[in-house]
């Protein structure tokens, strides 16, 4: 049982046509296994959080009751993307597991919405947000090593508190970029194979092998997104993460949560005047 489906083209070429659909279940089960493993880890193996350094009183005094975290634009992007992503996943995979409906039109419309929202996000992130805040830096890697050593029982100093985004967040964002761009780029080309309002059909844009590989990449990234989205939703509803989830709804988080988990030097919140530039490295409040 291979992970790809193959066929012979009219020209006798052995070409991949798409992924094997059992991978949908593999992805879903992988997500469920992650939940179970993580819950077991938290219950039996996780050590109490310990961070280097204390809250600096002279800085803390300037932190407001509500710490701005996500601007309205960033939140709107997130939720539009979420709706588009769920629509894409449901319209892509429900028909493969036996739920019959007219899915193609909904799928490419949701894909178009996702593509536009991603383009907006890239521009917004480059010009209006602290672009590098979501990418792993040297401190993240040093702290990750310390956390692993401490978990293994080896001597290591406590890690620093997090920047605006913890390393796990940044790695997840990287995985979403890889899978998201894969489905979007292949999806845009695949729209040439169906009738849409954007361009005339042109199935001869690529050869059968290239098309096949494109469908395979689209499928692999798609099933990967099943697992990634499940993991994302799991963390979003975990009690200890609810403050972060709420900040994606309301835009801000509690002062206490901020002071407990975030390094004021790595994600500085300066209390002076309220500002909507909540995604800046130095948030003005």
């Amino acid at each position: 049982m291979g992970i790809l489906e193959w066929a012979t083209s009219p020209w006798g070429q052995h070409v991949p046509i798409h992924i094997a659909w059992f991978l949908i279940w593999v992805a879903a089960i992988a997500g469920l296994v992650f939940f179970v493993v993580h819950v077991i880890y938290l219950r039996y193996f996780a050590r109490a959080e310990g961070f280097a350094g204390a809250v600096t009183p002279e800085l803390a005094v300037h932190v407001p009751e509500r710490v701005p975290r996500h601007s309205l634009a960033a939140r709107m992007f997130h939720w539009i993307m979420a709706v588009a992503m769920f629509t894409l996943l449901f319209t892509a995979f429900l028909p493969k597991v036996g739920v019959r409906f007219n899915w193609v039109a909904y799928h490419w419309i949701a894909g178009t919405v996702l593509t536009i929202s991603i383009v907006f996000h890239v521009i917004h992130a480059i010009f209006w947000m602290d672009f590098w805040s979501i990418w792993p830096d040297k401190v993240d890697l040093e702290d990750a090593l310390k956390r692993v050593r401490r978990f293994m029982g080896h001597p290591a100093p406590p890690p620093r508190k997090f920047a605006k985004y913890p390393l796990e967040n940044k790695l997840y964002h990287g995985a979403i970029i890889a899978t998201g761009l894969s489905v979007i780029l292949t999806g845009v080309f695949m729209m040439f194979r169906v009738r849409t309002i954007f361009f005339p059909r042109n199935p001869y844009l690529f050869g059968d092998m290239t098309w096949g590989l494109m469908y395979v990449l689209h499928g692999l990234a798609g099933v990967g997104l099943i697992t990634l989205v499940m993991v994302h939703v799991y963390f979003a509803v975990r009690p200890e993460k609810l403050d972060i989830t709420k900040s994606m709804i309301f835009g801000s988080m509690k002062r206490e949560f901020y002071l407990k988990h975030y390094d004021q030097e790595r994600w500085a919140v300066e209390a002076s005047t309220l500002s909507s530039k909540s995604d800046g490295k130095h948030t003005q409040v």
Partner: protein
Amino acid sequence: MAVIRDVMRAFELYQPNSAADAQKLLQQYGTDAWVMAGGLDSFDWLKDRIKRPKVVVDLSGVDELKGIRATNDGIEIGAMTTLTEVVRSPIVREKYGLLSEGAELAASPQIRNQGTIGGNVSQDARCWYYRAGWPCYRAGGNICYADTPMGRNREHAILHAQRCVAVNPSDSAPALIALDAKFVLRTREGERIVDAEDYFIGPDIDITRLHILRPGDLLTAIRIPSTWAGARFYFEKVRDRNVWDFALLNVASAMVVSDGRIERIRLAVNGAAARPLRLTAVEDAVRGKAPDATTGLMAGRLAVEGAVPLQFNAYKIPLMRNLVKRAIGGVEEATWAS
């Protein structure tokens, strides 16, 4: 692609003698099983080695699926009743002549002697790219070879094409839709009765099948209510060879006319889309109007709204327009327009 004709791959053959046994076998083997009614569609697939089922369930010994019975409200036709029996049935001829006409125009006498009504409505698409075993959408692949600038698509769809452009080839299907027939299915969940028009599905719902039967399901009978018994019927099939051929397009209508006005009407065409289409918008538009050439002209124009021709089948648009016009206004009143 090499095609080895006349040499079927080995399969287990089951010949149940009851619908219950047949259904049990179908459910036991699921997607590995192939349902064979008259065998006319089946043997093409099997001999070409394009469909390679592990198990064939031959329904020819299931007597309870054969025959035409009068019911309290019309008739019930067993799914294994041959097209010839349908054509020759006195009650069908007398009250449901539309079906008789449609069935009589299917294929050749020899094929009608062997082919069944259940097989006729459940047969697969005739697109040659698909039948040749190419990995098209309908075969589980990712392309439609017919819907390309060079694809041979003269017989293909002008309406509701989505990825796959193959059409439903059944002649009895539009007649059954016009007669408001109900299809009786045995499914895992029990007996299910669906309207004829809901039995057929397009590629938007499932690109690999033309009907709603899932692996393990069995079509057992077709019930025709008396609602349209003795109505004014019209059936016309246009094909390349009048001796025997699949329809390029066909049209079926059942109409009740009162005081020179169309009181009730059901109208369906096949060969225009992947499923036989009931033209409800046309029905609504012509109800209350005189069944004449003027109404027919209007109906024909309305019927082809939204039609998108492929490279080689634009002729189907005026053809469908004229067939609908004739179904409403009658042949004598219609005039050919070039």
